[in-house]
């Protein structure tokens, strides 16, 4: 068994003393049911406790605002899966980048709404930060030169308070004398926003006309700072040369003591040269080691290559953070990203977060970019599929979000279907409408077993409530002949008991559904017989009745009833059954009575009497009818 990476967290169960009793538990799909057993820790047993506790790890899926995250990202996920595989990867990169941006904008939208709930907001902030970095490093895969620019964008996006401060300062009466004035200027410089820095500096310059030359000099330096432009024809080496040239100029100014009179301006100049000690003095403005890293790169190594990043990342982290402080999970994740160790990033995120949403979607996107080597896990599927399965299984435990999970399972080629088959049967079915949706999902994926079992559940429910029509429509959907037979039996029993049919609207309008089961066909035809009789179409009725018995559509148990139904037809004044037909009826009667020759002891005498009376009446009627039929057929009209 693998070692655990972190110590598992302990969750105390309220009202339970682990020293006293043993705890029993059982795993659920996303939670554990825990109960107090009667067994004492010291042996022996005592009275039990009536409570069962449900311990859930992931509360997030129940947050209404995060639900929007799940729904919107589901939409993006499905869109991503449908990108055509045959496009060359060159064309796909911008698509992947825009999908990544989509995911991030969904996260940001959630954050805006969640401003009150601090805990989740900070997690989302971290999540978006990590995702953004992954997008820059892995998906966009910026080469040297643009890399620093992208990282700068990344840092700027996550340090939005600078603009707020700047607004405050500029809005004040005398901006240059504002307390936070220099903080704003330096922050802009640290973020590489030279134009804004210059604009704010102008205010100070206006206040100190004597030092105009100094300010002009700095302004000039800031303006001339070369920024790599990937679109232009300038190569990296050309840019490097220009940049070194500029840096020398700045260094020159420093050596010349041009800014010695103004400490702030001198600091800015030192920052421009990339003086790390000065940078570290402004730790508070930088606030994070990765900001420090990017600023350092901007002013010392703007042409850094992606492969060199991790040296600087590690050293920046060490320089910035106290050696005593424990690195936060976020820091180690970012460090792993700078080291281009995707698997470590995913692993650390999985441990740090309690919901598989982030790792699942990110891994899926990275997999589409073909950045994950196929890593065979002990469980047989690859990393992407494993994470998506975990995420979707978590979704399935939610009373409403289970529908999203279906699409995720669809896109897990190895185990998705099996998971879906197991989970879909456990969705509670309160209304017909929900059952229809679940069945539709199963039918679309050819899960006939599940369709049949769900239809059977619904049919049984309907039958229990005496809704025979509903039960029948469910059996038709499942093409369940056995159940249709059961329902027909119920109808026939009702008829025998009451003498009339219930639910005529159903039986009269069966249509082709009649053919689903023999019994059902019989029911339909039998009803037709009654209708024909009602319409006084006696010869048609007679023919139908006979065919029901001779074609063996009617069950044997019903033959007595059929023959009894034949009685009124036999008793009519005019002859309805022909001689042949009468012979057949007699044959049927004989077949019936020969099986009943031995009277059974448990049948009461009355029943016996009724039976024999009926049979005798029938025999008499048949004989009379035969006689009349022979006479009628033998008569020749003169």
């Amino acid at each position: 068994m693998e070692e655990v990476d972190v110590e598992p967290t302990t969750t105390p169960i309220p009202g339970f003393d682990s020293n006293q009793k043993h705890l029993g538990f059982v795993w659920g799909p996303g939670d554990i049911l825990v109960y107090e057993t009667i067994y004492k820790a010291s042996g022996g047993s005592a009275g039990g406790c009536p409570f069962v506790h449900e311990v859930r790890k992931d509360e997030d899926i129940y947050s209404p605002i995060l639900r929007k995250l799940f729904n919107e990202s589901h939409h993006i996920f499905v869109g991503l899966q449908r990108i055509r595989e045959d496009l060359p990867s060159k064309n796909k990169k911008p698509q992947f980048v825009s999908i990544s941006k989509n995911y991030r904008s969904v996260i940001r939208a959630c954050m805006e709404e969640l401003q009150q709930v601090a805990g989740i907001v900070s997690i989302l902030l971290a999540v978006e930060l990590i995702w953004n970095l992954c997008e820059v490093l892995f998906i966009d895969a910026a080469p040297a030169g643009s890399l620093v620019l992208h990282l700068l964008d990344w840092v700027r996006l996550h340090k939005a308070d600078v603009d707020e401060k700047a607004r405050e300062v500029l809005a004040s009466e005398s901006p240059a004398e504002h307390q936070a004035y220099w903080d704003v200027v330096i922050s802009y410089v640290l973020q590489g926003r030279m134009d804004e820095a210059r604009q704010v500096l102008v205010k100070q310059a206006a206040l100190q006309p004597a030092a105009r030359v100094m300010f002009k000099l700095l302004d000039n330096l800031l303006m001339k700072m070369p920024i790599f432009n990937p679109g232009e024809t300038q190569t990296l080496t050309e840019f490097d040369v220009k940049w070194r040239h500029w840096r020398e100029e700045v260094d020159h100014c420093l050596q010349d003591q041009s800014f010695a009179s103004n400490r702030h301006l001198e600091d800015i100049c030192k920052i421009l040269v990339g003086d790390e000690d000065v940078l570290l003095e402004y730790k508070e403005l930088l606030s994070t080691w990765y900001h420090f890293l990017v600023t350092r790169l901007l002013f010392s190594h703007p042409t850094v290559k992606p492969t060199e990043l991790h040296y600087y990342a590690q050293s920046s982290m060490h320089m910035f953070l106290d050696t005593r402080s424990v690195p936060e999970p976020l820091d180690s994740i970012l460090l792993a990203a700078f080291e281009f160790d995707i698997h470590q990033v995913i692993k650390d995120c999985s441990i740090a977060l309690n919901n598989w949403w982030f790792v699942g979607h990110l891994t899926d996107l990275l997999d589409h970019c073909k950045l994950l080597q196929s890593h065979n896990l002990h469980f047989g599927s690859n990393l992407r599929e494993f994470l998506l399965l975990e995420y979707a299984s978590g979704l399935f435990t939610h009373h409403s979000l289970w529908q999203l999970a279906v699409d995720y399972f669809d896109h897990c080629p190895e185990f998705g279907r099996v998971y879906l088959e197991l989970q879909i049967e456990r969705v509670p079915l309160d209304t017909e409408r929900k059952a229809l949706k679940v069945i539709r999902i199963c039918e679309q994926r050819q899960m006939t077993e599940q369709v049949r079992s769900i239809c059977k559940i619904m049919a049984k429910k309907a039958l229990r409530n005496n809704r025979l029509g509903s039960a029948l429509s469910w059996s038709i959907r499942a093409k369940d002949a056995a159940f249709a037979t059961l329902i027909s039996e119920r109808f026939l029993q009702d008829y025998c008991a009451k003498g009339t049919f219930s639910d005529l609207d159903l039986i009269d309008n069966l249509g082709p559904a009649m053919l689903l089961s023999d019994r059902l066909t019989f029911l339909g035809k039998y009803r037709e017989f009654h209708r024909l009789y009602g319409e006084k179409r006696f010869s048609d009725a007679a023919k139908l009745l006979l065919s029901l018995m001779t074609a063996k559509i009617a069950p044997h148990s019903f033959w007595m009833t059929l023959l009894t139904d034949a009685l009124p037809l036999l008793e009519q004044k005019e002859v309805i059954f022909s001689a042949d037909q009468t012979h057949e009826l007699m044959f049927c009667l004989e077949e019936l009575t020969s099986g009943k020759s031995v009277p059974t002891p448990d049948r009461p005498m009355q029943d016996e009497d009724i039976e024999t009376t009926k049979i005798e009446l029938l025999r008499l009627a048949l004989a009379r009818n035969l006689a009349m039929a022979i006479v009628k057929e033998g008569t020749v009209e003169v």
Partner: protein
Amino acid sequence: MEGINAKYVSKKISKTRWRPVSSSSLQQPDIFATGSWDNEDNSISIWSIGENGVSSMGDEFEGDPQLLCEYKHNGDVLDLQFLDQDRIVTASSTGAVTIFRHHHNSQTLSVSQLWERAHHYPCNNAPCTGVVCNSPEIVTVGEDGRIMLFRADQEGVLRTIEKADSSAIHAVTFLRTTEILTVNSIGQLKLWDFRQPGNEPSQILSLTGDRVPLHCVDRHPNQQHIVATGGQDGMLCIWDVRQGNMPISLMEAHTSEMWEVHFHPSNPGHLFSCSEDGSLLHWETSSNTDTPSFLQGGRNTSIISRSAIAPTGGNQSLINAWLTGDSSKGHLETTHMLPSQMLSVNSLDVLGQCLVCGTDGEAIYVNRHVPI
């Protein structure tokens, strides 16, 4: 170029309905109600688009529906209708029929009347699946096969048609003031006349051939004998109830269950249907059919998700153009009104030029410029 805004609301939407506007005013509707389903706490909500509601932040999402008020609802909202400007009737999966009152001044909802066990089986509750009103009368139908007639402001039941159907009744609509039409899960349309006593329908219509369960029905606004139905197989049928058993026309519309079908109330040459397969179709009978609409004027719809701050640029899989399809009848055009890859569209309503629909993806879509 008009966009359809998606508004994610954290609940699966089962019904959406516009509040009626008085026929004299030419205003477009601006308030709609939604009902949710499949949630532990379901609710009905009132939303506003346009000037009436609280102004949205920023102008980029003009017309974004704003929530005015919400009220807890017991059970799934299986049907929802506006009784009048202030009152909404809902049908619940617990078998209850509730009238909610919307107080405009305080923007709150309250329960005005409740019939708790309107639909039930002998031992437990049966979901009430459809409600239709003709103020002050309310007709409801349920899975128990009963038809109930209520009157708003009166406590008791006005009339019950017991054992109206041996299968579940899925939808109901008024044909005339005293006649209703119901559809059930064995594919039958039944006409009921309230002037006649007894529990028998005055007429039963059904397709010969496979009896497919029918889920929705709507009557033509001007011609009271023309009715459209949609069912489990996604086929759209137009019936003439005066003429026997055959529908006038059968059209393949969707690939799975059609949940709702609506004639446009003022332009009956337009029909809208929505389905489990995630599509919403707009059917148009047009006089000239030489050029399909995608060649005329190049209309393009893009979906603007409320959260998409960064435009998606060249991502074709998320932007969809209006697709057109020809039906077998030469003079009928259909257009898809929503992008593809959606979960089931459960409900739609159209009034004037505005269309609102709700999906299982927990989103509401509003289109204020329906081309009619």
